[in-house]
C-alpha cells in the first residue's frame, strides 16, 4: 500500500524541524542537549531513508566480489555479508587480498558516515 504524502522522510523532517525550532527555543540544559541529539538522530533517519538503499546495494555488490566463493547463501543480505567478512578477516582466509578488503571496508565505513554524519568525511576529491 502506498501511503499518502508526506513520505516517511518528509514526516521525519517535519518532526526534526519542530524540535530544531520550537523545542530548542523552549528548553535549556540537559533537555536542550538531548533535543539536539534527537535532531541529529532524525537527520540520520532522513538520510538513511533517502540514500540508504543505494548504499546498501553498492556494499553488497563489493562484498560479494571480494568474498567470492567463500559466501554461501547470503549474497542478498548486506549484514550477513559483513558478518562473513569480519570472520574472514579474523581467521586470515582473506590475507591473500587484504588490500582489496581494506579498500572495501574503507568504502563501507564511508557509506555509513554518509548516513550517520556526512560532515565527518573529508571532501570527496571525485565530487
Amino acid at each position, binding site marked *: 500500500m502506498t501511503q499518502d504524502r508526506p513520505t516517511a522522510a518528509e514526516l521525519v523532517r517535519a518532526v526534526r524541524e519542530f524540535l530544531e525550532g520550537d523545542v530548542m527555543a523552549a528548553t535549556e*540544559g*540537559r533537555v536542550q*542537549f*538531548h533535543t539536539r*541529539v*534527537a535532531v*541529529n*538522530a532524525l537527520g*540520520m533517519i532522513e538520510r538513511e531513508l533517502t540514500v540508504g538503499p543505494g548504499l546498501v546495494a553498492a556494499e553488497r555488490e563489493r562484498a560479494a566480489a571480494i568474498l567470492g566463493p567463500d559466501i554461501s547463501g547470503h549474497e542478498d543480505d548486506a*549484514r550477513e555479508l*559483513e*558478518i562473513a*567478512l*569480519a570472520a574472514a*578477516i*579474523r581467521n586470515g582466509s582473506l590475507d591473500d587480498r587484504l588490500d582489496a*578488503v*581494506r579498500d*572495501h*571496508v*574503507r568504502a*563501507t*565505513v*564511508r557509506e*555509513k*558516515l554518509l*548516513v*550517520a*554524519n556526512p560532515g*565527518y*568525511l573529508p571532501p570527496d576529491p571525485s565530487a
Partner: protein
Amino acid sequence: MSGAPDPEALARVVAATVGDGSVVDLRRLSGGASRETWSFDFVDAGGARRGFVLRRDPGEHVGDSDRSTEYQLIRVAAAAGVAVPRVLALLRPEDGLGRGFVMDRIEGETIPRRILRDDAYAEARPRLAAQCGEIAARIHAIAPSSLPALPGLDAAAQIDQYRTLIDTFGEPHPAFELGLRWLAERVPPPPARPELVHGDFRNGNFIVGPDGIRAVLDWELAHVGDPIEDLGWLCVKSWRFGVADRLVGGFGSVPELLAAYEGAGGRTVDEATLRFWVGLGTLKWGVICIGQAFTHLNGLVRSVELATLGRRVAETEWDLLQILDGGW
C-alpha cells in the same frame, strides 16, 4: 539512588570536616552518563561559602565500580603533586547518600568545545599539551606500592578484552577486525615495571582556567599497565573535538607533549609506540560506543544520547583505518 541527594544529609557529611553549616544551590552538573555529579555550596555559621562537588554512583549499581578506590587514588595523586580536586569525605552507608565522595569544586571549564574555542582560554591553549605531558609524567611516577588495589591491564590483555566485547555485541565491524589484526602484530614490549595509568586522560576530563589545567578528573578507569596508553588516549581523534590537526586534545602537538613528558621524567616515546596506543584507544572508544548503544537497546538505560552513540561507531572505524594507513 534516585532523585537529588538530601541536602541535610549532605550538610552533615561536610560539617564533619569543616564545621556546622548548610547546603545551598544544589544542582546536577551535565555530563557524566555513568556517574552522577552534583555541585553545591556550603555556607558555614559565619556566612562564608565554599563550593563542593558530590560524585556518586547513579541508580541501581551496575558493574563493580568502587568509589572508595577512586577516592583513595585522588588522595595519592594529590600527595604526588598531581593537580586534582581535594577530596573531603568518602560517603559511608549511614550517610544515606549512596556510594560516592565529596570533593572541592574547582572553578574552570571542562567542556572541550569551549576550551578549544572560547577567548577566555586563548592564552592557555598553547600551553595545554606541555602541561598534559608534565602531569602525565607525574602520574606515571607514582610508586605502585602507594596505590590502592587496581586492576592490571596491559596492551595484550586489552586487545583480548575488546575482541571479546565485540563478539558479545554480535555486531559485525570489519574495520575493527582489521584493527585488531594490526594491533596484535604491533604490541609494544610491556614496561619493565607496570605503572599507574589514569585510564581516561583526555580533553573533557581536565578543569581548565585561563591559566591552564587546574585539575585532572575521572579516575575511575585507573589501572596499572603501560603508561603510554594515557598519551595515546589523549591523542585519539574523538578527543580533539573537531580540531583534528592539533593531535593532542585539539589544542597541541605531539612533539610538545612528548618533550614535556620526557622533561618531567617520563620515558622516551617513539612514533610507532604512540601510533599503537592511539590505534588501541580509537578501537576502545569504538567498542565503548557500541556498548553504550546496547545499554540503551537492552533496556538498561533508555536514552536517545546512548542510542545515537551506536551510529558514531563509524567515526571511530574511519579514524582507525586512517591510523592503519599511516595517518593520525
